[in-house]
């Protein structure tokens, strides 16, 4: 059928798999960095780029990123997993349970297993019994915290250092510090434009970098590789895009969905464990909606690992700032305004006029707020990471495209 030579020339030139090119990413990153140091110099919000903030931000990003990854696994196979929050809670509890006397790694392993168990329940409900994905997920979110609290009362309450709502302390996981990092601190303290900021960034990642964080990065890269580079990943994703096509090619859709959802739970459990380890104990209500933020990062990151990691990083970063200094939170207003203004320009150019206008309006309001006040009211400081992350992600996202069969109940042989 060489036939369509004509149609071929007439049809638009093939649009290759669109992935942002590395050089473009580099330019964007450089630009963002320069803006960041300019704002830091101008406002004096030193914590915007201090190594402390970076380190704290990194460890705060880990649970979010892992929750998002959990969502990625499940949703790429076509199962919506809104139960991530609940599975994460199981992870925090599990980590507390084994972590306090067997060390953080045993805790991490058990937390991950409990998360996977949560995933298994979700898989049985949604894949085998065809329960609506949202209903099953919400049920898990309701049951998990109650279960964790109950278990806490029957276990930790009797342990030394434990309580009705918390576990005894967990030891820190091993952390690595690179030899040159104290040099960086010296440079950082000079507060030079760009140079000190760069030192802060690098210092943040090379000083007391927890192995848990390293593990999370490996899991992220590994997930991306498995899902997009292996035959297994292709099959798994095909279940989320066109399960009946996959079935017609002999792919066992049930099997892949099961694996995906169990891994999804494990990721959430791992995220919960990381959270418990960085807080040195399990505490009731510790997750604070991070499972949902992870899900938001997944959605606005267009179901791709790179963008979801960026979303998680943004949350971690703003969370760290919020915890460390209110001056920096104030400076964050200006930073967000600049970011939104840039997003507005970009969205305008890609034809998304409405989004551009909304972004610009919010940017202007933030500038006004910044100029008119000395600090952000304490009551609002705690919400900054949530607000900033959702605003930036939502306004920056482009043509979101969820897996086509995501959330749809699949029944073997009922394709058409």
């Amino acid at each position, binding site marked *: 059928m060489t*036939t369509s030579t004509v149609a071929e020339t007439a049809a*638009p030139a093939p649009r290759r798999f669109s992935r942002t090119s590395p050089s473009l990413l580099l330019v964007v990153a450089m630009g963002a960095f320069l803006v960041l140091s300019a704002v830091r110099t101008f406002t004096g919000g030193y914590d915007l780029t201090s190594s402390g903030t970076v380190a704290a931000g990194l460890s705060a990003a880990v649970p979010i990123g892992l929750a998002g990854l959990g969502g990625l696994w499940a949703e790429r196979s076509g199962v919506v997993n809104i139960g991530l929050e609940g599975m994460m809670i199981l992870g925090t509890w599990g980590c507390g349970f084994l972590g306090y006397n067997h060390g953080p790694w045993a805790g991490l392993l058990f937390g991950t297993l409990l998360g996977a168990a949560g995933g298994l329940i979700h898989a049985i409900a949604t894949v085998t019994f065809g329960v609506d994905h949202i209903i099953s997920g919400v049920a898990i979110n309701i049951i998990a915290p109650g279960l964790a609290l109950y278990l806490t009362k029957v276990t930790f309450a009797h342990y030394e250092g434990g309580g009705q709502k918390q576990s005894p302390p967990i030891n820190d996981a091993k952390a690595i510090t690179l030899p040159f990092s104290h040099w960086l601190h010296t440079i950082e303290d000079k507060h030079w434009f760009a140079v000190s900021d760069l030192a802060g960034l690098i210092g943040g990642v090379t000083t007391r970098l927890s192995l848990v964080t390293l593990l999370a990065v490996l899991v992220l890269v590994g997930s991306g590789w498995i899902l997009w580079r292996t035959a297994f990943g292709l099959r798994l994703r095909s279940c989320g*895009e066109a399960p009946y096509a996959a079935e017609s090619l002999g792919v066992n859709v049930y099997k892949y969905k099961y694996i995906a959802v169990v891994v999804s739970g494990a990721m959430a459990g791992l995220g919960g464990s990381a959270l418990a380890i960085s807080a040195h104990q399990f505490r009731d209500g510790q997750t604070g909606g991070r499972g949902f933020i992870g899900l938001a990062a997944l959605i606005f990151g267009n179901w791709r690992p790179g963008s979801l990691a960026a979303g998680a990083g943004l949350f971690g970063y703003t969370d760290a700032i919020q915890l460390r200094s209110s001056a920096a939170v104030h400076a964050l207003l200006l930073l967000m305004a600049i970011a939104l203004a840039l997003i507005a320009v970009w969205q305008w150019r890609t034809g998304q006029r409405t989004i551009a206008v909304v972004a610009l309006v919010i940017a202007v309001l933030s500038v006004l707020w910044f100029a008119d006040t000395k600090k952000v009211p304490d009551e609002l400081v705690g919400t900054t990471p949530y607000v900033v992350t959702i605003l930036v992600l939502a306004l920056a996202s482009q043509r979101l495209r969820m897996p086509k069969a995501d959330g749809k109940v699949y029944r073997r*042989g009922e394709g058409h």
Partner: protein
Amino acid sequence: MTLAGSPQSSDGGAGNVGSGNVGSGNVGSGGDSSVGGADLAIEVVGVTKRFPGVIANSDVNIAVRRGTVHAVVGENGAGKSTLMKVLYGMLRPDEGEIRIGGKPVTFHSPSDAIAAGVGMVHQHFMLADNFTVLENIVLGSEPTARGALNFGAARQKILALSKTYGLDLAPDELVENLGVGDRQRVEIAKVLFRGARLLILDEPTAVLVPHEVDELFDNLRELKSEGLTILFISHKLDEVISVADDITVIRRGMTVGTANPHSITPRQLAEMMVGSELPSPQTRTDTVREAVVLSVAGLTVADADGRDIVQDVSFDIRAGQVFGIAGVEGNGQSELVEALMGIRPAKSGRITLNGADLTRQTTRERRLAGIGYIPEDRQRQGLILEGSLWENRVLGHSDSPPNIKGPLIDRAGARRDTERIVREFDVRTPGIDIPALALSGGNQQKLIVGRELSGSPVLLIASQPTRGVDVGAQAAIWEQVRNARAAGLAVLLISADLEELIGMSDAIQVILRGRFVGAADPATVTAEELGSAMTGAGSAAGAA
């Protein structure tokens, strides 16, 4: 391989019925199947498959000789697709047996069938839109290297396949950017990639234009000469006769008999399918009136990347006129139609319906203004597959009687009107409460045509209105459209079936690369001339 008098299955009883009256039946000898088994690629013996309320296959017998092209024909809902799904392991037969190379086999899933060398191209595409061509093709039998999918090797193999069979594949293109013709080729490549020895093609030509069909048939002959066996379904009987070595006719789930393509005419074959005589085609009458219904001026439409896919197109359609657009798939027809329906924005230009400017109206407003729309892909755009027939009747017409009473849906009214459509358009169904997905492809199409002709529209936009519809039903649909046209309906007709286009249209324009490149007079133009004009090779006869 045996030629005439090919061996038939042992269970020749059902094979005899009805074949005698055309005198060309190549009917079963009733011989022992194990003797002929070695020559047979696949053999279906007494297969029965029931669905709730329907017997889709009843004691079906087919013997397919190795290295031949074997056609299966039958009316819409006769059970052809069901039988193919049984052969491909997607459905389990309730009774009967399938033999490959003389040995009985049981397929629990398509992977068993693939392992046995059976591959299938489905009537409705089985592709993941958001995957690349390569990903769609390799899925399920991926070449790997060191744990990872070996994209390089896969790409090479696909390009080699593409070259050998002229499939013109772009491995890294996203499937959602492809037209139906290209999708079809991807489907065929999927099967070849798996090294199938028996190819099942369910209506592969329904979406292709004539020269694409010719090339497909060249491909099939090539495959055949390499010893592959092809089992295919088509409603286009002349093409069946031209390409098939054997023909099996199925009527209402039963094998009626076999026919010899060398001695049967399309008309005889059609009568064998339907079991009665066909009405003769009526002669052309001129019903074109003065009043312009649809007027399109300087319409330009851009695709998602901002390229102009329809460029500066202008035309008028008058009341009682059928305006045909001929073109190879992917030359802007779909985008033009979507712009007319308000699904895709017009970049520039004006669309007016009976003098009212529609350019900025929403799809719903356009429908309310009296546009009926038969979309090219019935399953993606025309139906809610899980919804019942009467709910699908309401779809797109939920603002007008008989579907509503005040602000509420009028169930009784909608149901009554669905019954009417089922009756008038001969939709073969056990009832109007079954989901649309349980209808055969052709019957789904009839339901949509019936719906869109309801409520006396002033303009009907018909993309491939008879795609996948059997000859009898096709004639019935044409009849309905002609009647509506006589009553003043304006019709925009887009069809890959050039006979249909020429037979139905009062005026034809050829579209190429998003532009109208010439007019053709339907009274004088032939399908061949039109076909070459569509590729830009020659100008249509009677060009304006």
